[in-house]
């Protein structure tokens, strides 16, 4: 099965280069890096590092549109390259590329695979509480039982994309995909991934979480 690894990236600089290097070492798949309008030298760093690497496709958004939009651009490219499935991995080094092999194996027999982290001591308390609250809310509303709603390490076969296509441009993509998967009764499997927290001020803040909460009724009532 042809799997494309999509790496949405924004201002991650050397970390993004390290992430792509890590993926290159762990997987033989095509890597699609989408620079979401970084205002530092991330794009130049990536271009200089992987200019001659045929397995890496580098795309750049002229302006910052958000993670969800960068992911959609990655999907467009994956479709253009006739990929059958995609796996998303964050560029900030929070996701260990060694799990890609397992994602690939599970995707062979499943349409949708979510990564989940253990909610142990490594996860910040606020994030843990927010995650648990959203897991239960999504479980009640959309009948989907997830172990970690905020993990951006996941993959799916492109044939199910129309059913889970998200509208969130910025944060909330992972929650929206879970909600849509639940709504459409899409079977899924979960793969345990390492819990790595590098920058505690990055990622979903309490304000972003509030915005996600406001979107949930729209997903619920939307066709």
């Amino acid at each position, binding site marked *: 099965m042809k799997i494309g690894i999509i790496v949405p990236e924004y201002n991650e600089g050397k970390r993004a280069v390290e992430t792509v290097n890590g993926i290159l070492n762990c997987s033989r798949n095509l890597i699609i890096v*989408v620079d979401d*309008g970084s205002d530092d030298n991330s794009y130049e760093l990536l*271009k200089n590092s*992987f*200019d001659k690497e045929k397995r*890496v*496709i*580098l*795309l*750049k*958004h*002229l*302006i910052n*549109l958000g993670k969800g*939009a960068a992911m*959609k*651009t990655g999907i*467009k*490219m994956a479709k*253009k390259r006739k990929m059958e499935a995609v796996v998303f991995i964050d560029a900030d080094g929070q996701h260990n590329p060694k799990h890609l092999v397992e994602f690939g194996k599970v995707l062979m027999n499943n349409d949708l695979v979510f990564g989940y982290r253990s909610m142990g001591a490594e996860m910040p308390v606020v994030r843990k509480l927010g995650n648990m609250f959203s897991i239960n809310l999504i479980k009640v509303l959309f009948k989907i039982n997830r172990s970690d709603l905020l993990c951006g390490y996941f993959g799916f076969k492109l044939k199910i994309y129309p059913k889970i296509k998200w509208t969130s*441009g910025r944060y909330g993509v992972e929650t929206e995909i879970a909600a849509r998967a639940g709504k459409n009764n899409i079977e899924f499997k979960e793969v345990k991934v390492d819990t790595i927290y590098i920058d505690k001020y990055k990622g979903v803040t309490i304000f972003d979480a509030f915005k996600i909460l406001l979107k949930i009724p729209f997903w619920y009532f939307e066709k």
Partner: protein
Amino acid sequence: MNIVGVQLIVASFGFLMLYNLFLHWKKKDIGFKGVMVWFILWGGLIWITLFPKSIEPFIKELFFIRTFDFAAVAALIVLAYVMFENHLRINKLQQQIEKLVRIISLKKEK
């Protein structure tokens, strides 16, 4: 005609907005239709502020006790409409920008 403070403030604001509208019209930022709509809105506001009694019979028909109540409700309705229109247009613009940025990025792949 006795003009009270609140009337003076609102009417001055109305005149200022009419002047602003005129400037934008001169700069061709707004078309004739837009100018007419906003002229009626700001002109109406000035008229109601300076001559509240002129619309009293109409207000009584609608069961408003004071002209001020009518003005407040009308202002809220206009604001809600403008907000909704803006929301729709911003959403559409966002979608168009996203599409454009995506097309450009896919054309310039490394």
